[in-house]
């Protein structure tokens, strides 16, 4: 879905350079998340999702040399 957005805007050479599982333990490093929220997630999600809640990805792309700017 995200890669399609890159394509629709006009980017070329769209590449996923990294793709890493991101789980509850990873979220626990962030001061943005209170312990009670992490506990809520632990209860709300099946154990199978705890280690891979989302994916962390690195995406690179290029604006074509001949590209015109989209109407904004």
């Amino acid at each position, binding site marked *: 879905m*995200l890669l399609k957005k890159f394509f629709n805007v006009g980017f070329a050479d769209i590449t996923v350079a990294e793709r890493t599982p991101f789980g509850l333990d990873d979220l626990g490093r*962030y001061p943005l998340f209170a312990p009670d929220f992490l506990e809520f997630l632990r209860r709300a*999600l099946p154990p199978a999702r705890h280690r891979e809640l*989302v994916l962390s990805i*690195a*995406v690179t792309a290029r*604006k074509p040399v*001949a590209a015109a700017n989209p109407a*904004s």
Partner: protein
Amino acid sequence: MAHFRDDEARSIILGAYGRVRSDGVAVAAAFYGTEELEALPRDAVEMALGVGHPVRHAGLRSGEAVLDLGCGAGIDTLLAARAVGPTGRVVGLDMTPEMVERARRNVEAAGAGNVEIRQALIEEIPLPDASVDVVVSNGVLNLSTRKSRVLAESFRVLRPGGRISITDLVLEEALPEDVLKSPAALAG
């Protein structure tokens, strides 16, 4: 399906990122090298809240102009500034006043004369068309309810042939509704 209106989402994110405090380096240590971190102001390292290392994938060269979308306290902005050198320049954008203030202090502490920090929305980038060589962003695109708009704005400000390097979180499998409706989940 969007669970928050634009203004609701922005208010939640402004609150969360304005209040956040950190005195640890666990996030930065997960993504950056020790030597990179040792050369940066402590506050920029402790307030790293990204999910990867977009500068590593950007292939920055001396003299290039870089835009960091959602620069936070400035860790990627400062790494980009070092990579492009004194003949290059970096603009860091963030909508959170507290983060803009922190980033400016960290830029000053690092003595990075080729960096400008500006308070702005990433959906409305205050730069001219075709004015930067590279756009980087770290864990910020997922916070926007208008991701296509952010990418279109990035495309607009890039010079032809310019690059974008983004690290972010994506869902491969849906989360339960009560998680998706949680403001705390949105802020992350």
